[in-house]
């Protein structure tokens, strides 16, 4: 990026994050997850194992924090004085938030993690040297490092026959993470191209979204104003770019929020607050 380039195209480079910053986006995929109907059942997580060739690491490695669950359900208890958690538990599916201003991207010494024209934080396995800077910099802790050659014993024959040929099995020394099921995005794009049309909402379903027994996960293109996810973002007054705090919203009562929005990372996943019936 030469100075000449910057000066000549100044208005392009100083675009707001809402406009995509200096990216030329084709799509900006995003999610909306309703925590009120998410039950925390783990179906999405297991579907992710099935779709994305996630290695099963076993008890010892799990203990060391080396599990490879790209999508995990976190469960939190309320900090309560009383003897019983009368309002139940809190569950949240946590996966890569595909940040618009991702903290993982600029720290990669070899540009193995980069921003795609679809708004995804992609990981180039072949380029990754395993510095783990990205993982260290991720506030969501959703990047998973291959400390071992898991393929050696995660899929004893014939379990290996289940592996999805649409994506690779990763080897030792490589960072991996949720891709918003990029292989499914590719298939949908190819199909649309073959049928000589543009992508429409509903062409792509991620594995987690597909499995969810309560349909709590909605996925789509946030640049397409007609998509369900766009409509949900709009309804809950979440927009691209930095911080959308409650106080900045026209109606502070709407439920949408993004985790760690205050860090200005522009996550692509919007959560809807868990509802609690305080009268009960």
């Amino acid at each position, binding site marked *: 990026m030469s100075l000449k380039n910057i000066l000549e195209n100044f208005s392009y480079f100083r675009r707001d994050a809402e406009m995509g910053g200096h990216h030329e986006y084709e799509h900006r995929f995003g999610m909306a997850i309703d925590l*009120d*109907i998410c*039950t*925390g*059942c*783990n*179906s999405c*997580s*297991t579907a992710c*194992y*099935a779709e994305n060739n996630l290695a*099963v690491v*076993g*008890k010892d490695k*799990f203990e060391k924090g080396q*599990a490879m*669950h790209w999508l*995990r*359900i*976190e*469960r*939190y*208890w*309320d*900090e309560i004085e009383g*003897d*019983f*958690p*009368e309002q*139940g*538990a*809190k*569950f949240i599916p946590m996966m890569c938030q595909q940040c618009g201003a991702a903290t993982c991207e600029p720290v990669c010494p070899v540009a193995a993690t980069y921003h795609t024209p679809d708004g995804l934080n992609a990981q180039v396995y072949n380029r990754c040297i395993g510095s783990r800077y990205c993982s260290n910099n991720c506030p969501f802790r959703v990047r998973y490092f291959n400390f071992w050659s898991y393929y050696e014993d*995660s899929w*004893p024959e*014939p*379990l290996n*026959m*289940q592996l*999805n*040929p649409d994506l690779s099995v990763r080897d030792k020394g490589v960072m991996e993470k949720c891709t918003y099921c990029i292989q499914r995005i590719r298939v949908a794009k190819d199909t649309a191209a073959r049928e000589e049309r543009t992508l429409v909402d509903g062409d792509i379903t991620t*594995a987690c979204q*597909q*499995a*969810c*027994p*309560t349909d*709590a996960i909605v996925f789509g293109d946030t640049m397409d104003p007609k998509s369900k996810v766009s409509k949900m973002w709009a309804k809950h007054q979440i927009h691209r770019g930095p911080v959308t705090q409650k106080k900045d919203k026209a109606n502070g*009562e709407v*439920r949408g*929020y993004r*985790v760690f929005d205050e860090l200005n990372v522009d996550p692509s996943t919007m*959560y809807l*607050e868990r*509802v*609690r*019936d*305080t*009268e*009960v």
Partner: protein
Amino acid sequence: MSNVKVNRRKFLKMLGWGGAGTALAGCDMPTTVTLEEGKEEVVSYLMPEEYVIPGIGVWYASTCTQCEAGCGLHGRVREGRVLKLEGNPDSPINHGNTCLMGQAGVQAHYNPDRITSPMMRKGGSLQNVSWDDAMAELSKRVGSASGLKGDRFGMVTGTVSGHQAVIIDELMSSVGSKNHYVTEVVNTSVWSAVCRDMLGDELPTLNFDKAGVVLSFGADFMGTWTSPVHYMGEYAKFRKGKRGALIQIEPKMTLTGGNADLWLAANPGTEGALALGIANFILDRGWNVNDVPSSVRKSLQQYNLSAVEKVTGIATDKIKRIASMLTERGPALVIAGASTENHENGYDSVASVMLLNLIMGSVGSTIEANSRFPEKSMRAKQGSSKDLLLLAKSLKAKSLDVLFTYNTNPSYSAPAVLQLDEGLSNVGFKVAFSMFPDETTVKADLVLPIFSGMEDWGTHVAAYGAGEPTLSLQQPLMEPLYKETRGFGDLMLNILKMRSKDFDKFADYYGYIQTAVVNMPANVVGSVTGDHADMWTNILQTGVIKAKGEKGSLTPKLVEMKYKPQQENAGYPMHLIPSTGLGLWDGRHANLPWLQEAPDQISKVVWGSWAELHPKKAAELGLKNGDYVRVTSASGSVEAQVYVHKGIHPDAVAVPVGQGHTEYGRYAKGRGVNPMKILNPLMERRTGELATYATRVTVSNAHQHGKLVHMGGSEIQMGRKFVRTVSADSLRRTEGEV
């Protein structure tokens, strides 16, 4: 698949070897010869098998066999391999969704510990034999020449339905035996018995979407209650719109409890008293509810607030709150599950719970008559733990000579005190139809390896049909992985052929099903029309046949409430809760690595057993997370690491069912403990079900510590606001009726 001419698996092998052959061409090898079987042609990618487009996945409809709910599936098949399972959107049970157990179905199919050859017991150990030898032995023991007749023959299975139920019935009637034991540890037998007696319908349709408030006494409808995926879908509807409130009463927080608006732990076994207390309070207030006969009214009077508080440990203001929620927020739906059903007074407790439905007028609104599958013989035969007790009894009495086992593992599930294993050794000839070397299978005299759910044909009728009775077709998603495995239906048909000529007209089970399905009367096949070939194609494509149901009617009947308190058990102060969950279920999924690594929804523990204790009790015993605790009943003891949390009654210890396998392959064997083994042989008084929640135990510090392997470093959010919350009021203002 009798009519498929090309062997898909062989085809794949040829592709692989063909490549090798080409590579060797430089060594003067004729390129037209593949290394495999000396075949003289190479099939190139340009001439793929019908339907196989390299690189493109094709979806086939089938049915999930991971639990009894009968969800419809779509399986993705690519280059002859099944890769991924998704829900069938046409299924009225799961509407295109699946649970984690359904997702892991492929791991049962591709499991590295599958049995790949028939085995016969020779000189005390199981040894591989040929199918010819196995079938010859079977014919000798159960064929027409064997003279096998009457009740000396028994069969034990899990829940069966569809043509599988029919063909098992054929075998039972051919032998003239009534001893078909249908065992399930995860069941709703007591609930069904109460529904039958008080509503006139064993499994009425529950309309969560119409309910304003759901009061659940231990019914883990998101986890293990009847049809979890279906109910989770219904739950989503219930939460949207006017947003119903969920109140859960149970001694140990289940997944459903974790999602409740109000979660309360009544003293274990006193749920019935609480229900009666709520009923009494509502009737006392003279709120606008259905009245009850004076005899019933009278029997309720002893359940005044202070008496109920004393018995149940639930504060009076809470009881009042629940009562007012039921009346103000209705329509109400009141349900009961495992922790209420499986006590000695389970029936009475569930009947007390049902009383609330009757006085709140739920019958006809949130509870409706089930629409039954029209063909009676194909309806689900639901498993119960009563049959497990009956089986143990017959075995002990040496009243069985030949026993077939299929799709159930009584040797794992039965409490040790029932001495089921010893009883099994009394049976002269045990045949296991099994995919895996589980505890029951390894004790068999003849082991017949069967197809996985992804290799076999079948039809399923869900016990809970969700108001739309459906025949769900199970079709193979790929060629069998192993040459030496057979379909269960095929084997049943073979055995029937050994006994009678009536079945000779069916070449195989596929033919049997196909003939039966296309010839079914119009009220069963419903909208599927056309000639037989068209019909069959249509059914294969959609995977479901929506039948014209027989809608019954509910006939509510009030009975005098005879709730009996639990017996005190001096010397064993604690209640043992053998909890079950969506994941390992009753232990059948302990051999699937994805489910072992999927953290338990509440404790988040992976790959092992744990014991849940309340912080009060843990402090009393000087225990913290990861310490080992010894749980001792009159029938035995187990040791497990403690997980301390507040979502459990202080007088209860929960040890999950699922682990503690002594067999069952590399992922399950020798991992954790099985609480079923230390249960006392107590029965629910009215139904004869095993009272799994009635065992009393002592808990002691085993003075040993290890790291509790579970997900997450922190149990609380530490102010980080990952999960934010909002009040229901605010939701109604902003989103309102959707």
